[in-house]
C-alpha cells in the first residue's frame, strides 16, 4: 500500500517537475544576448532575411506562446527540428541513445561488479593494505576530473602502449542491429571479430566513466558493511556457528545493500553527467556529444531536446530507485 502511495505521489510530481525543467531551459535558451537566428542565417544574410527566418522558425512570437506551443508538440512526440542539422531532433536523439546507454550500462556493471565486493573486503579487512589502497582509490575517484582521466588513459593505453584504439565506437561495419548495442548484437550474431572491436573501443570510455562510480560504491558499501557488522544479529549468527562466508556474503551484504541501492540511483546521475564529458573526449557517438555539439552550435532546439530526455530519464530512474529501495528494505514497507 505504501508502495502504491509512493508511486502515485511521484507520478503526480513527474509532470510538473519536467515542465519546470523545460521552462527553466526554455527561458535560458531564449533570453540571450547572442541571436541564434542570425547565426543560423549566416553572416551574409540581410536583416530582412534574418527577420523572415525568425518568423519561419517562430522565434518572433512572445515567449509564453512559444513555450506552450513547444510543450504541445512535445506531448505529441515532436521535439522540433534541429537548427543545425535540419532533421527532427527526436530522430537524432533516438539514433544516438543506444550508444550512450551501452556505455553507461557497461560502466555501471563494471563499477558494481568490482565496487561492491571490494567494499565488503575493505570493511572485513579493515586497516589492511587493501583497505588503505582502496581508501586512496575512493578519495581520488571523486577528485579526478573525468575528462582528464580519459585523456591520460588515452595517452597511456592508446598512444603509448597501443593496447586500445584511441576513440570512436567501432572500426569497420557495425553488427546487424537487433538491440542497437554493438556488444550484444555482435554476440547474438556470432560476429566475434566485431565483438572484439567493440569491446576494445568501449574499454577506455567505460573505465573513465566507471572510476568515480566505483569509488563511491566502494566507499558506501564499506561504510554499510562496517555498520551492519556491529549489529546483534551478526553476533547471534556467529555464536550459532554459521560459517563466516555465509554470514558475510548473504546476511551482512543484504543489510548493507539497502543503502547501496539508493546509491545506484545517485550513481546514475554521476554516470550521466560524466557521460557528457567522457563522450566528448572519446568521440563517442552518443547523446552526450549531441548535447555538447548542440550547445556549442547554439542549436537551442537540440539543447531543449537533450534536456527533456536527460531530465525525464533521470526522474524516472530516481523513481525506480525509490521503488527498489522500498522493495529491498522490508522495514520501509511496514512503517
Amino acid at each position, binding site marked *: 500500500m505504501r508502495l502504491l502511495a509512493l508511486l502515485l505521489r511521484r507520478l503526480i510530481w513527474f509532470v510538473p517537475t519536467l515542465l519546470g525543467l523545460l521552462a527553466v531551459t526554455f527561458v535560458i535558451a531564449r533570453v*540571450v544576448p547572442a541571436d541564434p537566428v542570425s547565426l543560423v542565417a549566416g553572416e551574409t544574410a540581410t536583416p530582412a532575411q534574418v527577420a523572415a527566418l525568425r518568423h519561419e522558425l517562430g522565434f518572433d512570437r512572445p515567449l509564453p506562446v512559444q513555450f506552450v506551443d513547444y510543450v504541445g508538440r512535445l506531448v505529441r512526440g515532436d521535439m522540433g527540428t534541429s537548427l543545425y542539422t535540419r532533421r527532427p531532433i527526436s530522430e537524432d536523439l533516438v539514433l544516438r541513445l543506444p550508444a550512450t546507454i551501452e556505455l553507461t550500462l557497461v560502466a555501471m556493471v563494471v563499477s558494481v561488479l568490482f565496487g561492491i565486493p571490494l567494499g565488503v573486503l575493505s570493511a572485513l579487512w579493515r586497516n589492511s593494505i587493501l583497505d588503505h589502497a582502496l581508501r586512496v582509490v575512493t578519495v581520488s575517484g571523486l577528485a579526478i576530473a573525468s575528462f582528464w582521466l580519459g585523456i591520460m588513459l588515452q595517452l597511456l593505453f592508446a598512444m603509448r602502449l597501443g593496447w586500445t584504439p584511441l576513440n570512436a565506437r567501432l572500426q569497420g561495419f557495425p553488427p546487424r542491429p537487433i538491440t542497437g548495442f554493438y556488444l550484444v548484437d555482435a554476440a547474438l550474431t556470432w560476429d566475434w571479430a566485431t565483438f572484439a572491436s567493440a569491446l576494445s573501443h568501449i574499454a577506455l570510455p567505460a573505465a573513465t566513466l566507471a572510476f568515480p562510480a566505483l569509488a563511491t560504491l566502494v566507499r558506501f558499501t564499506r561504510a554499510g558493511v562496517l555498520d551492519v557488522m556491529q549489529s546483534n544479529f551478526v553476533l547471534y549468527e556467529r555464536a550459532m556457528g554459521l560459517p563466516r562466508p555465509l554470514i558475510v556474503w548473504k546476511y551482512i551484504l543484504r543489510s548493507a545493500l539497502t543503502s547501496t541501492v539508493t546509491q545506484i540511483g545517485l550513481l546514475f546521475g554521476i554516470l550521466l553527467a560524466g557521460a557528457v564529458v567522457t563522450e566528448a573526449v572519446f568521440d563517442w557517438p552518443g547523446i552526450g556529444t549531441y548535447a555538447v555539439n548542440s550547445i556549442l552550435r547554439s542549436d537551442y532546439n537540440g539543447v531543449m531536446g537533450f534536456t527533456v530526455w536527460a531530465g525525464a530519464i533521470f526522474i524516472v530512474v530516481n523513481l525506480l530507485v525509490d521503488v527498489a529501495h522500498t522493495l529491498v528494505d522490508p522495514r520501509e514497507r511496514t512503517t
Partner: protein
Amino acid sequence: MSGLWFVLSRLARDRSALIGLLLIALLVACALAAPLLATHPDDVFELHPAQRLRAPSATHWLGTDRMGADVYSRLLFGARITIVIGIIAVGASLVLGVPIGLVAGYYHGWLSDLLMRVSDIFLAVPQVVLAIAIAQTLGPSLPNVILALSVTYWPWFARVVYAETRALQKEVFVESTSALGASAWRLTVLHVLPNIASPIIVRASIGMGFTILTAAALGFLGLGPPPPTPEWGRTIAESREFLPDAWWYAAAPGLAIFLTVMGFNLLGDGLRDVLDPRLRRSRTVRDG
C-alpha cells in the same frame, strides 16, 4: 569560543583532514604568491613561439606550452582563477540556498512544497549539463561561469538546510522558544541557524571540490574564461592536439585540479567526522 577549539583540536588528530588542509593551504599560497613564486610571471600574457612545447627543464620546471609560455607559471596564476570561481560560486549558492532551505523547512504549507519542487527541478538534470547550457547561452567568460555554477549548486544547500531545519523542529528548545513568543525570524536566525551551521560548513567544503571540477569541465569545453586566461580546464583542452609528445602539458593542470579537489574533499570529510554529531549535541544543550 570553546566550540571552535574543540573542532580544531579534533580535526588536528585526523590525518587525512590535515592533508586536506595542507593541500588547500598550498593552493591558497600558490594563488596569493603567484607573481613571486612564478619563474616566468609574464608568460600569462606574453608569447614566445620559438620556445613552444619544450620538455621540463631547469628553466621551465614543467615545460612550455604551445605558445612557448611556462606551464608552471601559468599553473600558479590558474590557481587564482580556481579559487575565485570556487569561493564566489559556492558563496553565492550558500547565500541563495540557505535562506530558501530555512523558509521551506520552517513553514509547512504550499510554499514549502513549491520551494522544494523548484530545487528538485534544478537537481533533475546533472549539474554539469545545466551549467553547460547556461554558460554557453551567456557566453564564455569568468563571471558567466560563476553565475552558471551558483545557479546550479544552490539546491544542495537548500536541501541540507531544509532537512536539518525540519529535524530540529522536533527539538524541545524550538518549541519552548516559540512558546515564549519568539518571532519566526528570531527563532530561525538566532536559534536554528547556529545549530545547522555544521552541515552547511561540510557541504560548503565538499561543494568547493565539485564546483572546481565542474568549472574545469566548462573550461575544457571552451565555455570558461577565454584565452589567454590560464584556466586549468582550458589548458588541458589546448594540450590535446600535442599528445603524446608534450605529455607534461596535459598532465600538470590535471594534477593541479586533482590535488585541489582532493584537498577540499578530505577537509570536508574530516569536518563531517568532527562536527557531526558531537558538536551539534553539545550546542543544543546550551541553547534554550
